[in-house]
């Protein structure tokens, strides 16, 4: 267990947000920036005309399909990385297993390709 390393990471997780907070908060605290908001200024930006409807427009299912294929390949790394780390100590059988694994996923990719799930419409 690498305790010290992880404590360092924990500290880093606290420091890293503070760094960008400082330049954002400082000008507001020191009143460097003007504060003259009015209704027109606060309007949603849309080329000068008032926005029609709310921001939450209907989305295409295409986005979901990309996220879906991504998720499946992301899961693959769960198996891929332990396998890659241990690879030099594994028998030849391990190589065959991983080729099978990748081939099965490759078939899935080919299916998504043929079904047009990877086309941007």
């Amino acid at each position, binding site marked *: 267990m690498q305790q010290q390393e992880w404590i360092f990471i924990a500290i880093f997780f606290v420091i890293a947000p503070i760094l960008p907070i400082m330049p954002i908060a400082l000008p507001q605290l020191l009143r460097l920036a003007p504060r003259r908001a009015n209704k027109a200024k606060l309007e949603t930006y849309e080329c000068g005309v008032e926005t029609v409807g709310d921001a939450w427009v209907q989305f295409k299912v295409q986005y*979901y399909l990309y996220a879906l294929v991504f998720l499946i390949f992301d899961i693959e790394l769960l198996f891929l990385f332990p396998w890659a780390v241990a690879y030099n*100590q594994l*028998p030849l059988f391990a190589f065959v297993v991983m080729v099978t694994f990748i081939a099965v996923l490759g078939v899935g990719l080919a299916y998504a390709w043929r079904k047009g799930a990877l086309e941007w419409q």
Partner: protein
Amino acid sequence: MVPLTAYLIVAALLFCIGMYAVLARRNAIAILMGVELMLNAVNINLVAFWRFLTPSTTATGSGLQVGMAGQTFAIFVFVVAAAEAAVGLALILSVFRNRRTVIAENVDSLKL
């Protein structure tokens, strides 16, 4: 050292929160989020038991190692969670397209 019981209680609490979401929420997506919480609670349990009971110290060649059982199970829970989320959300989308609703109670055409 934080004892095993503490981890198990946190996991139990998370599991029950997820269970409440599954039982009480009406939106199907919210129910799915509850299921994800429950699966995570299970994962905490698996990893905690692995850590406290059977962590393997060294690789023993090709002999039978039960040492990694907890972590391996957690990995398969990840796989199942991902598959469940993908298919579950796709089902919700499909229902939404046909019935224009994501409220789980309203999808009851199979009821007698």
